[in-house]
């Protein structure tokens, strides 16, 4: 695989997938495994001449049928480990993880009509580690857990995993409600190589390699009209 020096400086590869008519970004790694998430075929790699201006644009990482397939895959992976969910609960992390948790829960209900899927919302505001280190305090969201987590297998659900600090707070916040048997983490988007803490997800929708100035935004049909994952490039 060849790469031009200009792209190596950026630390990113840009792929054009003519089959799906989508553009994908990936950080350069020595192993070809780094590209595995983007189903990019060598034959249709097309380096666009205006690499820089293309990088500034917002890229869609996931939408349409592939978004729905990803949700379904995550559900089936959960069923592999939790069978009928008799001893498992789902906790969506406020504010943005609850939409994914709701979607996963309703999808699981349609796959397993007999199962009783317990789904709650967990607010982590008071457990964050950046209180008094930011300009103003964050306004908390509601926590809604109508079941007991003591002795249960808890699946924490969030939309994007980046530094891992939210998940650290979530584990603290959750422990205030009891001692679960086991805790797992499900994320729709895993921003790799950006962790501040030794936290890794158990279930991953897609993995993204991104730089710090970029943002990953997950929008939902319920609130933002469309199911979509976008990579926003700053400035």
């Amino acid at each position, binding site marked *: 695989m060849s790469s031009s020096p200009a792209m190596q400086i950026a630390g990113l590869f840009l792929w054009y997938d003519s089959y799906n008519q989508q553009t994908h970004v990936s950080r350069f790694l020595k192993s070809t495994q780094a590209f595995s998430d983007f189903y990019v075929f060598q034959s249709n790699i097309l380096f666009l001449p205006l690499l820089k201006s293309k990088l500034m644009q917002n890229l869609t990482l996931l939408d349409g049928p592939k978004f729905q397939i990803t949700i379904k895959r995550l559900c089936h992976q959960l069923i592999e480990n939790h069978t009928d969910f008799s001893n498992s609960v789902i906790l969506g992390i406020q*504010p*943005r993880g609850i939409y994914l948790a709701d979607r996963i829960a309703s999808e699981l209900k349609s796959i397993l009509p007999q199962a009783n899927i317990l789904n709650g919302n967990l*607010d982590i*505001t*008071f*457990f*964050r580690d950046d*209180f*008094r280190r*930011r*300009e*103003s*305090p*964050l*306004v*908390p*969201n*509601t*926590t809604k857990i109508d079941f007991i987590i003591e002795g249960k297998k808890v699946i924490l659900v969030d939309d994007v995993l980046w530094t891992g600090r939210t998940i650290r707070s979530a584990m*603290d916040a959750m422990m*205030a*409600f*009891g001692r679960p048997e086991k805790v797992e983490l499900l994320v729709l988007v895993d921003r790799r190589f950006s962790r501040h803490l030794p936290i890794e997800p158990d279930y991953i929708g897609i993995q993204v390699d991104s730089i710090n100035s970029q943002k990953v935004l997950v929008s939902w049909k319920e609130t933002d009209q469309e199911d979509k994952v976008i990579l926003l490039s700053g400035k």
Partner: protein
Amino acid sequence: MADNNQILGTRHLLGIKDLNEKDIQLIFETADTFKDVLNRPIKKVPSLRDVTIANVFFENSTRTRLSFELAQKRLSADTINFAASSSSVSKGETLIDTVNNILAMKVDMVVMRHPYPGAGIFLSKKVNAQIVNAGDGAHEHPTQALLDAFSIRERYGDVAGKKVAIVGDILHSRVALSNILCLQKLGAEVMVCGPTTLIPKYIKTLNVKVEYDLMKALQWCDVANMLRIQLERQDIRYFPSLREYSMLYGLNKEILNSLDKEITIMHPGPINRGVEITSDVADSKQSIILDQVENGVAIRMAVLYLLAGQR
């Protein structure tokens, strides 16, 4: 997570005067979640674990001090308590010296009650710490007003448009002034009621209704906030006897039952049973006196959290 950070318009909580409607709603929304925290098996959150708060009380208090202390502990703050009666104040130390000595021990916030109006405002200009006013003379008692309005909001869903009568010793009451300001900012109508001698002459400039007949006030209002007669502040006699006051302005079950609607009874405490309200009223279903105490902790947690979070 981006755009839900909001900030109070003030660095200290000295009075309701410094807050606007948005600030009050922000405190209420935050208190809602703290109330939820207080109903959990583990009622503690680690938010204020690196904050030290001094409770400086130059005047007696049980409810307010306990409520503040509990709020601080629930937020994991370190607290020190100071009561003027057992301190060097009696040896002649000035207020600024006392507080600066406490601050030298690396204290971030001071919760102060003082018998002189404006003591908190004075202190906030002289020392480098965030001040929370827990009552200054007959001036303001902001957290009490916030928890009263929060309790009304909890009972009725909204404060706007509600009619609130404040009955009793308006002249000596800091609760009355803070309540009037807070309720008006939230869009409620306020009436004060009491003997002419205990209603300040210029109260009308605050845009409140004044009524000297308890029956008429009760028929008008949705909520009656019954204040205590502050005998310790009365340097002269404002009415002939406590018995006469209680006959004219005391609330009992017969009066309550004679009204054609069910009103809510509030009291900031401490209650003088048999004077401003009788026991059967204080313990009735219409009374939300104990809800007020419960909400006090959540409101104070919200205030401390929001103030400590801004730097």
